[in-house]
């Protein structure tokens, strides 16, 4: 059986590394300059976008590259956020320790949930991650003495050499730094031996095992890595909002990340970026559109926004899976080849 989601083991862009590198530098320069020119709301939005992209990279490594479906990604983001909040509250750790710690905490807890089912194939991991989503959220809500339940925890701004990152713009640079590192790592890990093992497991795990890939080990690595990304994203979110509560990490957020991976294109790092951007912007457009329509016809649109978002997320997931399983990344490639035939990108 040939899977419809295929990724070349070595990305086709390898020979044109130079050009990709230049474009990346240009993009980073633009992003660095953004807060100088853009309004505050944009910067805030870019920060959220960055966090979402990091988390989506994580899910893409698990689901897109390795074929391990996780329905509990939001809960692991939550673990990261709570780790930062608690590490700061009780241990007074600075951000450069707290954020990696958040990643590690999420990875450890992720493995705790994933380990029993990673040994077995099939549906079990999906259900274990769903269990993680509900159990972790339960812990966030009900472990009152530590998490303060629904009230949540406040987080003090991170400080760099005594300089507090106390507004959107300052945290934005921290997020941008993490985003660049995370993306760089995601691109490169897939080119490595580890990445090839991930893809082999996704395509045909039994065959991979026969060929000598230690599938349980690599599944574990993929799962830990994906959860680590989620934890880092959660840690950044905690610094960004300066506030953590259980409501932020519900099932809807897990659906959000999953749809971002699918819409962007499973098994494509570019796809994870595009998907996260698309899915973050979409609710804004939906809200604007719905409010405009509601204003014209006099409906009470505000009350249906949340379900509308849920329905649209689901619809996009189903539509992309059926019609374009390689997602926006494929559409992007196709558009590029149409404009520059000489590039010879499939």
């Amino acid at each position, binding site marked *: *059986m040939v*899977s*419809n*989601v295929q990724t070349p083991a070595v990305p086709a862009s390898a020979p044109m590394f130079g050009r990709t590198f230049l474009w990346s530098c240009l993009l980073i320069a633009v992003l660095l300059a953004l807060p100088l020119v853009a309004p505050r709301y944009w910067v805030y939005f870019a920060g959220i976008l960055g966090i979402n992209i990091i988390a989506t990279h994580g899910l893409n490594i698990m*689901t897109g590259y390795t*074929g391990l*479906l996780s*329905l509990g990604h939001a809960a692991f983001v939550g673990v990261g956020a709570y780790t930062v909040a608690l590490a700061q509250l009780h241990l007074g750790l600075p951000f450069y320790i707290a954020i990696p710690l958040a990643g590690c905490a999420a990875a450890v807890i992720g493995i705790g*949930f994933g380990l*029993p*089912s990673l040994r*077995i194939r*099939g*549906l*079990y991991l*999906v*259900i*274990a991650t*769903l*269990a993680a989503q*509900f*159990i972790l959220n*339960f812990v966030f809500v*009900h472990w009152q003495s530590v998490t303060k339940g629904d009230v949540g925890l406040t987080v003090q701004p991170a400080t760099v050499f005594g300089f507090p990152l106390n507004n959107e713009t300052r945290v934005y640079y921290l997020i941008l730094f993490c985003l660049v590192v995370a993306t760089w790592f995601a691109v490169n890990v897939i080119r490595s031996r580890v990445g090839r093992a991930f893809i082999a497991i996704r395509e*045909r795990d*039994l*065959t991979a095992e*026969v060929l000598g890939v230690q599938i349980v080990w690599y599944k574990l690595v993929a799962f830990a890595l994906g959860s680590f990304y989620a934890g880092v994203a959660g840690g950044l979110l905690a610094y960004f909002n300066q506030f953590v509560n259980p409501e932020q990490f519900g*099932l809807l957020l897990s*659906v959000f990340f*999953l*749809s971002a991976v*699918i819409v962007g294109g499973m098994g494509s790092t570019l796809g994870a970026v595009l998907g996260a951007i698309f899915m973050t912007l979409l609710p804004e457009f939906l809200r604007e559109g719905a409010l405009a329509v509601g204003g014209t016809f006099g409906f009470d649109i505000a*009350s*249906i926004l*949340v*379900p*509308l*978002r*849920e*329905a*649209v*997320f*689901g*619809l*996009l*997931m*189903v539509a992309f*899976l*059926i019609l374009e*399983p390689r997602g926006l990344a494929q559409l992007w490639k196709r558009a590029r080849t149409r404009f520059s035939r000489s590039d010879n990108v499939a």
Partner: protein
Amino acid sequence: MNTFSAFLEYSAVGIAAGGIYALIALGIVVIFKSSRTFNFAMGEMMMLSAYFFYTAAVTFSLGIFLGVVVAIVGSIAVALLIERLALRPMMGRPFIAIVMVTFGIGSIIRGIVGMIWGPNDLQIPAILARTPVMLGDIFIPGKTARAFAIAVVIVGGLIAFLRYSRAGIALRAAAADQITAYSMGIDVRRVIAFTWIIAAITGCISGILMANVNTLTPHLGLVALNVLSVVILGGMNSIGGVLVAGFIIGWLESVTGWMLGTEFREITPYILVLLLLLVRPTGLFGTKEIERI
């Protein structure tokens, strides 16, 4: 009342609630057997059916009997639409892609229901009498007991039907080996559509019962995610297993809720699932599948 009789009472209530779990789980298992599709949208299908019933019985005041008929017909139509539009194009695609599609469908249904009927609780007309049932000293709320009776009769009937009818034999043939089933003249696509109809019916009835015992909200579907643990415990390809597993999980939920506090009810099934994955992933009655490379 002493502790032991309280324990018995909670046990009885839990087992009674487990009847509905078995009914929902049956819908999942039947589809899984025929097409290796694990239907994560089952809870939402169930919730949607309850809303169909509400609309027919209350909004259009058709009465309870016609309401149930309309709800069943509506659910079957929705199930067939889902199967035809979303899952048939996915045939032969990787397993996790299919799971994601059903998960997406669940999300769509939740959203649509939220948009049409709103987030508030709705009261559906009482089908089940309230008068409690006494088993000796044990007191069981009337609705729960009657819902249990209905669920068990339907599950029992369906198990017998799948065992002895032609359609049931065709289903098992398709489950055992699709290609051979095709070559023996069984229309596997029709078998799959048929299993979706069964799932629609069990989902519809369990949805109406569930909405009767609790209330009707868009969260009804999420409650049914507990059923996943029933399916795992029973063994994913065991039709008979769901009944026993449903009872066990209903019982466990009720008893842990009593001993540790009601908030623990919601995660009991998930903790059980995790333990189960550690010990016996094939469930109580499932069989391990052997694959060729």
